[in-house]
């Protein structure tokens, strides 16, 4: 089963707005995400450990669905005893659509009620299978990933499946470079698994990547030249045209005649075309050499042109690598120069303004600075030499691929397989793309199409999820912090339009089950548990934990209010003051009423869905 089929199946069973129902009290995760993660983890475990010949095990499709269904009965059954028959028939109908097989639908629906993830027994499959499902579910509840060790030993004791845990972490302060390294780690593990035929399931957790493996001697060795230099797609981090310019400039720096020619007040045309700067030629720092920033950039990230020179990293980086060895680099402790972005003392540096060569619209807010306060001048008054270290240069290069100035990020607090992060990035990207194409902020009717409302849902779902092609996709995931980053938008002319756009988009993402969200210019420094953290300020409507016992139940309404801000704005277009923003000033308890105010039609859709499967009005 390919990922898009799996995603469509999941949204057929649990369509928005139901998908945004919170699943847990201890952390903010939606029912959809929790079910999807358990389904995928179970599928991967079964695929790897209960392979053909060993144990009778469910097929991948079935395994995913068993995992996906495990909590639905409990969560949706909360609406009362008398509604259980309604839920049953609703689920059977949806399962028939999802699987296309009425018999399979009838056999699967029992798992909703028995919850084998907790009972660990069912006659259909041997007990080993259910212990793996138990593991997939219990993984979600871990505060600390090392708590998985007792779970693995009980599986070893009870069903003789021997799994080990290997923690790998790259705690460097450059989030976008981390996304590149985590993609490389995934490819590395895939290669290793194919070569050695051992099981390797990488899980992303908030505190590093956890690898579940049957190989006790697994070692992770990443090579700078093989794993980092080729970039995300093998074409290098630096675009080809820029690399050619860098090479030209670097050669020019070596040639006194060319330097003389390009350094005058009026530069010749070729110097201008290649973006030559005298400053970048002279102010770089490299051990044993002076000057040439162009050469430094090529030594670290050049793919087509690689001047001789070692990849030298600050000594402190060594302590930031856990369970992983980085080869093809050397370390130098200390250094005269301090980086204003990450704060490390570095032996290699380029001038701060050199970054603009790669990313012209870069603003200070977009750097993920680890050093506060905001004024670099105050900070640097005692530091005589400062320059950007090469890892921060790589971070800017990776960031520049997202293009948009404002980002949206989702940081999971529960462990999830790397493949799930990839899927999450894909769906979020599709939702943002389709919503922008339909101009949801200006065309109020379009938001109804993102919610379950009658029989044409399945064709609309096909449209939103698409074919799985990732051409032009703008998303990254970081397996070392379980975070997904996406480009959201550029600047708007009017402040109010930015509010509407961001609220509508985050509302749609939350309706589809994606939170906790953050919308900001640079990713937040620490993970959070709120529905949304917004760089323009905190408003009571979204500034709460969906895991909260009292407020959590309102999450679908809150998400729908946010998504229908565009509807409200269109209706209130003649108002002098943008008074419609005031719906954000009320806490989530008021969200059903606020939804009646901002979009009665969306309220009706939500209520009739709840009425259809029990509970409701």
């Amino acid at each position, binding site marked *: 089963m390919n990922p898009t089929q799996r995603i469509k199946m999941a949204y057929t069973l649990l369509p928005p707005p139901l998908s945004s129902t919170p699943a847990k009290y201890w952390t903010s995760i939606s029912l959809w995400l929790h079910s999807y993660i358990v389904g995928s983890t179970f599928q991967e475990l079964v695929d790897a450990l209960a392979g053909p010949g060993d144990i009778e095990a469910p097929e991948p499709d079935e395994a995913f669905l068993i995992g996906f269904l495990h909590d639905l009965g409990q969560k949706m059954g909360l609406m009362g005893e008398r509604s259980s028959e309604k839920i049953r028939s609703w689920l059977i109908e949806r399962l028939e659509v999802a699987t296309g097989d009425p018999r399979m639908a009838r056999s699967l629906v029992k798992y909703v009620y028995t919850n084998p993830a907790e009972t660990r027994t069912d006659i259909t499959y041997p007990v080993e299978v259910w212990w793996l499902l138990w593991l997939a579910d219990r993984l979600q509840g871990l505060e600390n990933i090392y708590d998985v060790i007792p779970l693995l030993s009980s599986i070893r004791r009870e069903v003789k499946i021997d799994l080990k845990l290997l923690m790998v972490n790259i705690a460097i302060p450059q989030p976008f470079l981390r996304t590149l390294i985590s993609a490389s780690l995934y490819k590395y593990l895939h290669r290793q698994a194919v070569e050695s035929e051992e099981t390797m399931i990488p899980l992303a957790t908030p505190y590093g990547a956890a690898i579940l493996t049957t190989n006790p001697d697994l070692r992770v060795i990443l090579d700078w030249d093989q794993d980092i230099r080729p970039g995300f797609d093998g074409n290098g981090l630096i675009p080809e045209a820029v690399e050619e310019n860098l090479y030209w400039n670097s050669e020019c720096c070596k040639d006194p005649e060319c330097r003389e020619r390009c350094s005058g007040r009026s530069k010749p045309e070729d110097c201008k075309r290649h973006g030559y700067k005298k400053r970048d030629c002279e102010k770089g720092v490299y051990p044993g050499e002076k000057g040439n920033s162009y050469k430094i950039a090529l030594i670290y990230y050049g793919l087509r042109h690689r001047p001789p020179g070692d990849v030298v990293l600050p000594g402190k980086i060594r302590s930031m690598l856990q369970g992983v060895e980085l080869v093809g680099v050397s370390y130098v402790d200390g250094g005269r120069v301090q980086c204003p972005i990450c704060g490390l003392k570095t032996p290699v540096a380029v001038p701060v303004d050199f970054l603009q060569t790669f990313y012209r619209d870069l603003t200070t807010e977009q750097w993920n600075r680890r050093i506060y306060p905001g004024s670099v001048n105050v900070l640097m008054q005692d530091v005589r030499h400062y320059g950007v270290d090469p890892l921060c240069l790589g971070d800017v290069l990776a960031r520049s691929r997202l293009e948009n100035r404002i980002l949206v990020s989702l940081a999971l607090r529960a462990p999830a397989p790397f493949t799930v992060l990839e899927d999450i990035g894909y769906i979020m990207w599709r939702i943002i793309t389709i919503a922008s194409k339909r101009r949801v902020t200006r065309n109020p009717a379009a938001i109804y199409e993102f919610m379950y409302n009658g029989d044409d849902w399945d064709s609309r779902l096909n449209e939103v999820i698409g074919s799985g092609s990732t051409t032009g996709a703008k998303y990254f995931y970081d397996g070392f912090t379980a975070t997904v980053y996406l480009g959201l938008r550029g600047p708007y002319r009017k402040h109010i339009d930015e509010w509407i756009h961001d609220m509508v988009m985050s509302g749609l993402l939350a309706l589809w089950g994606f939170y906790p969200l953050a919308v900001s210019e640079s990713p937040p420094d620490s993970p959070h548990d709120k529905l949304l953290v917004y760089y323009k300020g905190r408003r009571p409507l979204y500034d709460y934990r969906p895991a909260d016992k009292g407020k959590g139940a309102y999450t679908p309404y809150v998400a729908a209010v946010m998504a229908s801000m565009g509807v409200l704005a269109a209706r209130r277009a003649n108002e002098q003051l943008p008074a419609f923003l*005031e*719906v954000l*000033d*009320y806490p989530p*308890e*008021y969200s*059903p*009423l*606020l*939804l*009646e*105010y901002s979009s*009665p*039609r969306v*309220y*009706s859709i939500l*209520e*009739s869905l709840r*009425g259809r499967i029990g509970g*409701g*009005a």
Partner: protein
Amino acid sequence: MELLELCKYDPGRGLDYYAAGLAGVLRGARRGAASTHAYTKEVRKALETLVFNVWNDPWEFIDAIAEANIPRDLQKTECRKCFAELLKALLRKFREKADSLPAGARIRLMNMIVSAIAEMARYSLPPAGDKIFELCFLNNKNLGGEKP
């Protein structure tokens, strides 16, 4: 009987339920009226009396306020009763919930409720309101409708 049950105060029902119910009754009573005000003048009057005149000690007045603000053009006795019950419940729930809000936010919320009721009555009636609308207006013997 069933209609009255749907209209009565019940702690499990939220403000949104009563607003939807009132919209259901007003859709029938004011069909085709021209403005938000024409749909909701009684509800607004009742809420304003509560908010501006008796907010601090409202409990003995809520019933009277509701009884005094039943639309004149609502003819059927059962519907009049239902409207009064819904209005009582809305006032009561609003007083309970909005007490913790600052006065300004309370007034803005009142305006939102009125606007929401008019919007629902005119364009998009949610399931709760629709049920009340059906029981109140579509089974009217005087109109010659069929009994379910």
